[in-house]
């Protein structure tokens, strides 16, 4: 196996799917030039017909993907930054998620939406927000986010092959994270809807994803010998792999959810509620969430006030294990 970055793993996934399926195409703004590395150079292999730059108009840009998907194609939409999905949210979330169901299951909408998300770049506001929780709120859309290069490639390929809309952002804080990935052409997917126990432990389960998964793993290592931390990566938020989480809770009886999103109405809240509903008797302590406080993400050096980090995760772990 090779060692490559997460962002290159995403590029390879798109590249391989573009090669094998002529209905797959990429649409976005300035994707040909490659504002982020994962689209850079694709136009040279696939041409501007399949690596499509649009005028700045998210509705029109997303409309290309949505209309083409209704026409039976398999678009990948690159929103650049996750916050930009809000500009065309009624199309990319409400309509896209509901049409298959509402229209009597006549037509699937195989659309992949991706974007850079998250803190760590001190960019503030719409350049630093997460979108997975918002999309998870709306029915009919699968939502996933990779935490490692291996997962990134496998999950992107699974998303492109899925017949449903899939929102699969990637965290800018780990875009250069390196990890082992099978050789090019060594086809594999990481199926959507399957969580991954990234580290086994006995005392507390930490559910964390993406950059926060990496933070959680650091904390787990630090606490080794003192508190045995099991770290679970949900990988997919919708559909969520509840079984893996419950199996872990049967062992640890304690849960910390690290979710880089505003806490109010967040994905962390949803999982916390489901655990309470489905596994009340497994809990030996209240479920704790490490999220962003409901404060706009400030830029500059104030970002650390809101972003989850290893210290906050460790404090939560110690709290539930007290």
């Amino acid at each position, binding site marked *: 196996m090779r060692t490559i970055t997460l962002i290159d793993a995403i590029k390879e996934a798109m590249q391989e799917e573009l090669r094998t399926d002529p209905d797959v195409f990429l649409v976005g703004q300035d994707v040909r030039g490659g504002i982020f590395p994962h689209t850079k150079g694709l136009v040279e292999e696939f041409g501007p017909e399949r690596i499509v730059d649009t005028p700045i108009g998210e509705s029109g840009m997303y409309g290309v993907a949505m209309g083409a998907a209704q026409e039976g194609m398999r678009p990948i939409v690159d929103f650049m930054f996750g916050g930009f999905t809000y500009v065309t949210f009624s199309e990319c979330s409400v309509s896209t998620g509901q049409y298959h169901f509402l229209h009597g299951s006549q037509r699937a909408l195989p659309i992949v939406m991706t974007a850079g998300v998250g803190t760590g770049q001190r960019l503030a506001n719409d350049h630093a927000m997460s979108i997975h929780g918002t999309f998870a709120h709306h029915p009919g859309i699968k939502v996933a986010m990779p935490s490692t290069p291996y997962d990134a490639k496998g999950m992107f390929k699974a998303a492109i092959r899925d017949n449903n809309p899939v929102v699969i952002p990637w965290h800018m804080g780990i875009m250069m994270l390196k990890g082992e990935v099978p050789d090019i052409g060594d086809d594999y997917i990481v199926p959507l809807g399957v969580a991954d126990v990234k580290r086994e432990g006995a005392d507390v389960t930490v559910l964390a994803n993406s950059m926060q998964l990496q933070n959680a793993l650091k904390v787990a290592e630090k606490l080794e010998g003192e508190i045995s931390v099991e770290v679970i990566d949900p990988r997919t938020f919708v559909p969520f792999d509840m079984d893996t989480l419950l199996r872990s809770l049967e062992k640890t*009886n304690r849960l910390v959810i690290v979710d880089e999103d505003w806490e109010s109405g967040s994905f962390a809240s949803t999982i916390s509620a489901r655990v309470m509903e489905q596994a009340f*008797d497994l809990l*030996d*302590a209240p479920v704790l969430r490490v999220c962003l406080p409901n404060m706009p993400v400030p830029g500059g050096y104030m970002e650390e006030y809101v972003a989850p980090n290893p210290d906050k995760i460790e404090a939560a772990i110690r709290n539930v294990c*007290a």
Partner: protein
Amino acid sequence: MSTEYVMPKLAMAMSEGTVSQWLVEDGQYVEKGQELATVETEKVSYDLESPNTGFFKLVLGEGETVPVETVIGLFVDSEAELAGLDTQRPAANETLVASDPAVDSLTAAVAPVAVQSAPVATTTAVTAPTATTATGGRLKASPLAKKIARDNDLDLTVVAGSGPQGRIVKRDVEAALRDGIRPISVVTQGPLVEKARIPFKGMRATIAQRMVQSQQSTASLSSGWESDITELLAIRKRFTARAEQLGTKVSVNALLIRALVYAIQQVPVANSALVGDEIVIYDSINVGIAIAMPGQNEYDSGLMVPVLKGVERMGLVEIDKALKVLIERARSGALAADDLNDSTITLSSTAGIAPPGMNTAPVLNLPNAVIVGPSTPKDKPVVVDGEIKVRTMMPVSMTFDHRVLDGEPAARFMKALHDCLESPELMLA
């Protein structure tokens, strides 16, 4: 085919009961008539006899309280059926798991026999300095701790919590289960060395609640005087001389009760109770007899008030015999719920225990309007017909509820009682 076994309703006033101890193992084959369980109500504890023969599945955990008519066990005919029984308990029982233990302990008194005979295992565990109840008395335990306790029939109210804010967590329950019987721990180091702790629960808590309720809800007034019982003792001597013939050695208490009957006949309002918005004056004279009982440990005491009923229709010997049966039943834990009901007046004697001549001020035993408290007599020089003579004088105290009767009838009642004690021939009147 399984047959349900429910918490029996053992008295009109019984709304719920607690299985303090199962006397059979889960799944054991039991014979009809075999003792199944010790059940406590607010007032008393019973050993229940099995109504059926068969394999018996325990449904309710020890220490758990359920409403009457709730299924607490199941009879099945075969071991195969036993194995097939759903181990889930009926939902009705679940509701009590989270009930307020502070309230429970007030309403579900532990009868003395239960305290004596119930193995400490069911009620004993760790009592650590950490409080397990928060403000308002709610038991703080994690969902998991509650489930483990439920599955193992462990009473969480006796488990100390070591989690945040004193929450009982898994490790506390596991420790309690693993360590099994452990004496209530006391602090044995530092400037405040403890000898023992008495859990403020069960009968202790019930007595406290009753006493406070009596003090707070009545207009009680106490008086005391001395009665010359020299004659009374002389008459008793004549009775005791015929003990073999009468079948009992007539006690002073029997004479006291007979004197109460006389006094009540003179002043009926003393034999009464405030019931709702009416004062009810009774023809029946049912005397509540305060009896000291063993407590939860050697430093604790208990108190029960079984009722000797219909004494107005009884002769002295009959009263004495009935009184002795009642006391024996109380001490052996054989009281029935009805034995504790329907008193109309209370007798609380400290004679023989208190120092001679001591006056008491007994606390009213609700709903009775009068409680009479004779104490240890003493030989004293008194003036009789202008001469100083040595007589046996008994201090007698009485507390009455001024809401029910005023000073004038109370004084007349005390005078009538006094007269009868000094001139026991009035008992024949």
